[in-house]
């Protein structure tokens, strides 16, 4: 065997790949499912928190800022491990999938709350005043006048942050979630060959390149245009 053949046999082993690609495909579905759940619940709860913060209840806001900052400061893997290994001592036994989902959704909630809040505060005060001067209530001014403008400002930073956090689904492999990386690593230990990792990387590219491209489109589409 030449060095080149050995390289191909190690990383692009056709037999190993043929055997394990169904596992990787299954992992892709788990990754997609996990990512969708994280995106929907993380962004929805982030928006809900930002709206709650807009209500201006002081002690609640201090608590919220503390929790959000903590979630942004902690590495996501630490949060996953805390939930997975920590909650059982409190009588709860979340699966690896649920732990990863919850942890990443919390992180996305924290970041998107900050992004939504920044968007809300970036809307000029005159917009509030014009709305209130016509008799709209605080909530009506928020929902009909301020929020639509805030969301527009929010889309570019939210898109890039969402993509970054969604890639964190790979961390689920640490707590035995059978997503792409999890499937690939167990295939590697079963076959004594790293080729499944190449398949796994290819699966990530297939999943995330369209997302990154769509994200760039969204960012240019919503970049400041008055």
């Amino acid at each position, binding site marked *: 065997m030449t060095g080149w053949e050995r390289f191909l046999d190690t990383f692009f082993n056709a037999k190993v790949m043929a055997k394990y690609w169904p596992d990787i495909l299954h992992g892709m579905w788990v990754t997609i499912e996990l990512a969708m759940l994280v995106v929907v619940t993380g962004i929805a709860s982030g928006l809900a928190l930002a709206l709650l913060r807009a209500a201006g209840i002081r002690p609640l806001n201090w608590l919220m800022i503390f929790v959000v900052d903590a979630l942004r400061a902690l590495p996501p893997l630490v949060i996953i491990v805390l939930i997975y290994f920590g909650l059982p001592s409190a009588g709860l036994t979340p699966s690896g999938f649920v732990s990863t989902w919850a942890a990443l959704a919390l992180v996305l909630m924290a970041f998107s709350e900050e992004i939504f809040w920044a968007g809300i505060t970036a809307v000029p005060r005159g917009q509030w005043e014009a*709305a209130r*001067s016509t*008799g709209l209530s605080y909530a009506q001014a928020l929902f009909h006048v301020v929020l639509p403008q805030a969301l*527009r400002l929010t889309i570019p930073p939210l898109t890039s942050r969402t993509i970054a956090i969604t890639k964190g689904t790979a961390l689920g492999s640490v707590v035995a979630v059978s997503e792409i990386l999890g499937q690939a690593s167990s295939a590697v230990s079963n076959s004594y060959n790293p080729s499944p990792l190449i398949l796994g990387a290819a699966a990530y590219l297939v999943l995330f390149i369209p997302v990154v491209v769509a994200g760039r489109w969204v960012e240019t589409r919503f970049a400041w245009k008055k």
Partner: protein
Amino acid sequence: MIEAIGLHKHFGALHVLKGVDLRVADRELVFVIGPSGSGKSTLLRCLNRLETPDAGSIVVDGIDLMHRRTDLNAARRRIGMVFQGFNLYPHMTALGNVTLALRKVAGKGRAEAEALGLAALERVGLRDRAGHTPGQLSGGQQQRVAIARAIALEPRVMLFDEPTSALDPELVGSVLAVMRELREDGMTMVVVSHEMGFARAAADRVVFMDHGQIVEQGPPAAIFEAPQEARTQAFIGQIQRH
């Protein structure tokens, strides 16, 4: 129509209104002039409770705006306000700007709100711009849409805070023309502005403010031609030199 008595307002240590009394009769047009920072905007914003005075009473069209149980949102529907910076909603069309409060505050259905909104745009001469967004309109047109947004709600009083000072000189006339028509229709108006020509032609009374107090007031001719107070004389001299 408006009776604001003994208004005091502080921003932190800054005493911005120092006991201002302002009475405005039905159908009267009162002009408020004074140096920058003298508290004109703050006074105006107290009249629809965008700003809450620290002391004093405000009654507009029989509604006590300082009473705890007063529904301010309902009251504000009766008090139109026009801002220096227009403050149109940039994500809505001209018609959308005008109909929002008609629908959400006055509770009109979509069709009725749009008919009323178009009628209001007609009054400011912009019916044909109903589908344009603020970014597609000139400053003068934006300010007229802002006036339409306020008058669509059929207010009893209109408050104008320097409505033409953000406009290029050639666009000022169109906004003043709309204000003059409102005046001729009998609208009660309080106008903060330094448009002396308009004040002479349309104002019943000119109020001069300085350092949070009303220094002097009277008919336009008296204030502009023969001010009694030294501070008024200095200020009138200044703006006439421009």
